[in-house]
């Protein structure tokens, strides 16, 4: 019994010693957070302590070779130097290589178990498989299996063609849960997109392109409309079938009288049926009767019969009643004020305008512009009204 206990104690001690010597935990603690990179014969301490970028989406290119195989050696040399093959996989620079590259010996017992599910009859055999991430389907799938005929460019093209063909056959990946695919499809069926027809461009031979800038011709001046000097005209468009009611007739006559008064005796008045007028002027049937005021053959104003009740046909007369008596009282009692001065100014301008109209003299501005000026002056006067504090 004692011997048994002694043997067990020796065993435990030896195991403990073995454990103590297997891993130097003290050094692990002394190093702390550190990443030491040993690259061949060099060692360096990496500043960035995190791992490199993921490469799980890289394709796999595998060469299965045989010892004593000249083609295998040539392929190995070509893959280390040829740009076509290195564009696919660079054994000298795995980090920047487009695909992971592995070179296996068929007689290597540590590796040949990998190929027991496939048939390899010639060497070197090149295999291409999708990434192990599953992004391009089952990573076990053989996308390309071929042999090397000595031309690296041909081999590279065959590999690329096979990958393209495989990728084209891949079914789109199903989204995980249709109800979770928010934002993928709109909640309605939008109208199909209509692509504009391409505008045919003339085929131009580059050699025919002349670099010398062509002479720039002056832009053609638009033809000016014939000037009818001093030809104001009022065209009354009526409908021969409808005729004019007595009230509309009187209103139109008043408009014409007012226009004649303002434009002077040089104003021509013409009556025209709609059938004729629509050929010369932009007049709709529902606008008739309408008075067109033209000058030098161009329409300046158009007055529809619907607006006749609202048209003031008589020229306004400026009388003593129009004198701004409140403004005068303000000036006398409190002194100068802008509103009062503006009111007197408006009166004076209206008086002068009325006298000129009466005498048949040409007005400086038309009635609409004149009214706008008066409104602006009045608005200015209102802004100058002092508010009680």
């Amino acid at each position, binding site marked *: 019994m004692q011997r048994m206990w002694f043997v067990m104690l020796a065993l435990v001690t030896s195991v403990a010693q073995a454990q103590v010597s297997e*891993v130097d*935990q003290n050094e692990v603690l002394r190093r702390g957070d550190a*990443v030491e990179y040993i690259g061949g014969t060099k060692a360096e301490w990496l500043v960035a302590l995190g791992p490199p970028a*993921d490469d799980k989406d890289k394709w796999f290119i595998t060469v299965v070779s045989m010892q004593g195989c000249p083609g295998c050696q040539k392929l190995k040399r070509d893959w280390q130097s040829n740009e076509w093959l290195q564009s696919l996989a660079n054994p000298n620079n795995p980090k920047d290589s487009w695909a992971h590259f592995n070179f296996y010996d068929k007689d290597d017992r540590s590796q040949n178990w990998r190929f027991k599910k496939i048939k390899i009859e010639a060497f070197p055999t090149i295999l291409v498989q999708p990434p192990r991430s599953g992004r391009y389907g089952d990573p076990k799938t053989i996308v390309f299996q071929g042999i090397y005929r000595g031309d690296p460019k041909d081999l590279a093209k065959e590999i690329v063609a096979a990958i393209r063909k495989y990728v084209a056959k891949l079914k789109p990946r199903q989204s995980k849960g249709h109800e979770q695919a928010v934002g993928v499809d709109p909640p309605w069926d939008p109208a199909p997109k209509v692509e504009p027809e391409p505008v045919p461009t003339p085929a131009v031979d580059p050699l025919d392109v002349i670099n010398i800038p062509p002479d720039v011709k002056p832009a053609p001046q638009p033809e000016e409309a014939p000037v009818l000097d001093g030809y104001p005209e009022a065209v009354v468009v009526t409908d021969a079938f409808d005729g004019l009611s007595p009230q509309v007739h009187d209103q139109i006559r008043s408009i014409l009288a007012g226009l004649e008064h303002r434009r002077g005796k040089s104003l021509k008045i013409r009556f025209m049926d709609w059938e004729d007028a629509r050929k010369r002027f932009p007049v709709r049937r529902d606008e008739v009767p309408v008075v067109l005021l033209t000058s030098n053959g161009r329409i300046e104003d158009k007055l529809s019969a619907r607006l006749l009740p609202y048209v003031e046909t008589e020229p306004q007369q400026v009388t003593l009643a129009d004198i701004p008596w409140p403004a005068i009282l303000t000036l006398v009692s409190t002194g100068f004020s802008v509103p009062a001065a503006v009111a007197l100014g408006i009166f004076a301008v209206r008086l002068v305008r009325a006298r000129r109209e009466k005498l048949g003299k040409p007005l400086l501005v038309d009635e609409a512009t004149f009214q706008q000026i008066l409104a602006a002056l009045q608005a200015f006067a209102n802004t100058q009204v002092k508010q009680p504090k």
Partner: protein
Amino acid sequence: MMKQLVWLIVLLAPGVARADGLAVDLPEEIRRWYRNPDGSCVQCSIGMCGVDQNVPAAATILWDTDYGPRERGGSGPSRVADYCRERQIRVYNITGSTTWDWMKWATRNGRGAAIGAGSYHFQTLMGYDPASGTWSVCNNNSPDLIDEYDEAGFRRLHLASGQWIVVLDYPPHPAQPEYVRWW
């Protein structure tokens, strides 16, 4: 009594997994080559990673070959750096709190890692499934098995040995190729 003891061992023991589908998918026969005979767990783990990634200089580290003399016995980060430099093996020798990120990176990108696992011990990280939080580890004291740990269990395992791992800087291997009719 014996039956109850067996059930207890089965319940308490970590899960056992198959190598298929793991980052390190070595068959049982190959894993047995790296059984730990004499306290060389660090080299056993590095060797297993070496054979997985087809790096002969690392795969033969336990034996005298053209790639160099055998490396036996216990190791620390410095010794690993020395013999990797001599044998021209490209490795990341990582200590400290970043080992977790490196382990996840390695398995995510099809690689294994030699990791501190258990008290004064090194094992081979075979794979990690982030969806289930399952870590797959091969202990060179029992290379026939692939042990599975949940997040908490694996954390205890790695911390017990000190945070130190070794990752080989070589491309991963492809999946075992099969003929799939895609054309």
